[in-house]
């Protein structure tokens, strides 16, 4: 009879499990009820998402989530960060463990179409490059025939690398590691001649070497890597919130609204600024947010330019120039649709 009882319990459990959990339009409510945004980030990548000694996360990917926290909950600190490896990231988002994935993730057709996910914009335009030790005596990626290449598992870089070497008719052996820390360790232990990753990451990873000056980034950029936040497919409201939070930061930079002057701007006469910071129109309401959502974002996280300079700009150890990531008005390709 015990067996029968066990089977009954199992049957009851099945009934409980069979309620289909659809995610449509429920992320915003869940976030408000929980009082925090759960954000998937990397396991540690300086400038993008990196914890300091006290466990505080910082970086441009971290700020994307903090901006969403400010827009939705009015407080950029109401965000919980979940470190994920490249392999874990999509499953964590699909299963509902996190609300946003902001983990230097490349937007590709396959990922957008077959994973049940949506890319909500581009917070950093990147491209894949190579890091080599200076004593190797190599000055161009075309001289890398026969090299061993350290690489992180589960990234688009793995595919670009294969394409590049095959197209150039060169041989290589890929040494695949799980986390970026292990990849750097393998590289500095001499297991491979080259480390390949997105260029921004190469600068970040170089700072982790014992002697950063012993290595250099090669000039070639072999791919397009638009990096941005990702949300689950099927919840358009949440998708819009994340997308427009990023656009609000870009518009703020374009309109000259900064962390310091956002309070003064509340008396501005410029209609675009008034719509952005909520003194005019019902932009927040349309997204299901408070009227001052964008003002909170700019006041607590800053506009896009401030976010960029603070985390990866010329005054940081990474020393990355705006380049492609400058506003369209300044020769870059960062362009946001208007808030109206």
């Amino acid at each position: 009879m015990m067996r029968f009882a066990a089977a009954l319990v199992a049957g009851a459990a099945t009934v409980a499990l069979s309620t289909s959990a659809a995610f449509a339009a429920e992320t915003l409510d869940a976030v408000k009820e929980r009082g925090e945004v759960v954000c998937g980030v990397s396991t540690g990548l300086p400038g993008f998402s990196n914890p300091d000694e006290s466990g505080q996360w910082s970086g441009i990917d971290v700020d994307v989530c903090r901006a969403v926290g400010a827009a939705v909950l009015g407080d950029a600190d109401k965000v919980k960060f979940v470190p994920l490896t490249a392999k874990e990231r999509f499953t964590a988002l699909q299963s509902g463990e996190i609300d946003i994935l902001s983990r230097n993730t490349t937007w590709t057709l396959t990922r957008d179409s077959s994973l049940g996910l949506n890319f909500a914009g581009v917070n950093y335009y990147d491209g894949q490059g190579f890091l080599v030790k200076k004593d190797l005596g190599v000055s161009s990626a075309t001289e890398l025939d026969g090299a061993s290449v350290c690489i992180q598992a589960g990234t688009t870089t793995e595919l670009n690398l294969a394409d590049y070497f095959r197209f150039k008719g060169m041989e290589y052996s890929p040494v695949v590691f799980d986390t970026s820390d292990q990849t750097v360790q393998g590289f500095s232990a001499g297991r491979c001649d080259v480390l390949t990753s997105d260029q921004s990451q190469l600068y970040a990873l170089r700072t982790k070497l014992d002697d950063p000056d012993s290595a250099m980034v090669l000039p070639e950029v072999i791919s397009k890597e638009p990096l941005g936040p990702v949300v689950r497919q099927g919840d358009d409201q949440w998708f819009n919130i994340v997308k427009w939070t990023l656009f609000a930061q870009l518009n703020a930079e374009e309109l000259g609204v900064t962390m310091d002057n956002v309070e003064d701007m509340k008396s501005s006469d410029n209609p675009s600024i008034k719509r952005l910071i909520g003194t005019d129109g019902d932009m927040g309401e349309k997204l299901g947010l408070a009227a001052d959502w964008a003002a909170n974002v700019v006041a607590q996280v800053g506009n896009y330019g401030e976010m960029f300079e603070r985390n990866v700009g010329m005054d940081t150890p990474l020393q990355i120039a705006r380049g492609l990531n400058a506003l369209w008005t300044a020769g870059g390709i960062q362009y946001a649709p208007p808030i109206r």
Partner: protein
Amino acid sequence: MAEPAAPRTPAPWNNPRIRALVFQGLALVLVLWFFWTIFQNTLTNMESRGITTGFGFLDNTAGFGILFSLIPYDEADTYGRTFIVGILNTLLVSGLGIVFATVIGFVLGVARLSNNWLIAKIALVYIEITRNIPPLLMIFFWYFAVLRTLPSPRGSLEFPGAMFLNNRGLYIPWPHPEPGFWVVGVTLIAVLVGAALLLRWSKKRQDETGVRFPAWPVSVLLVIGLPTLVFLLMGSPVTLDRPELKGFNFRGGVQLIPELISLWLALTIYTAAFIGEIVRSGIESVSHGQTEASQALGLSRGKTLRLIIIPQAMRVIIPPLTSEYLNLTKNSSLATAIGYPDLVAVFMGTTLNQTGQAVEIVAMTMAVYLSISLIISLLMNLYNRAVALKER
């Protein structure tokens, strides 16, 4: 006077056999329904969230490289082939690990019981240190600690016979057969069969007549000598593919990658400690009277161990030894930490991430480990039946 009670057939619902069958059937149906519902539920939910399902992805082009493969593989092959490459790499490192862990384990077990104080204590220290360190740490130790001390390809350590060791691995020359080599192969097979027959014949003759024939030395001489002679007569039909430094790395020959070497070392050293203890317990389970009896018959120490103790100890050793083999195989999945392209690293790592089909890929990977483990269990159980105590 008392009539024997007529055998009364109980009503079907009171018949214990029928009742057992009914309830077992019911339980089976419920369990199947449970799993079927979970399966359907998963499919429906994944579909409603726009996640691609099914096994069609196995035919798509993989497009990424794999460091080390036993079968020809390149980026134009399919995801299905990465699955096979992963399985073979897992089997390779598990197989190597099992063979060497068994050999070292047996030596350790016997050494642990040695009358020589030094040998017994060395074995004891080895076992206590290695079996108390987590295998993942052991793998990291062999990978990073040992790798860092090796030179780069340009400063390789050279060994006699054109072998090179550096932090890219061990490079050894590899023979490539030329036309005419098949004669040597055929000779070798013929000699092996002949030697087996010779050994059987000599054992039979010794059993019947007691006359001994030095079958072992003769067959070893035959197996080594004859093929060598044929090889020389055919004019050495083999060319050696020697590794040579070209550009950054060595080309040619066979490369044992450091990931394989360190994983193999770590798994072997770790599991050997456990096998050593199993062998010791097996030997100690054989009563001391057996040793005394065999010495009274005038058998030497070595023969006592080989002919009397070990065969009886095997019955105790085999079942726990099976568990160790299973553990070693499953521990090989730690390869993913150091980048050895085993099934978990290649298929559940890169392939999963490029396709995003987690459910299918995790299920396939689990099925593979389950099958490997069941096959090892089956083989060991067959062997166990062969050596088990037979009631005569």
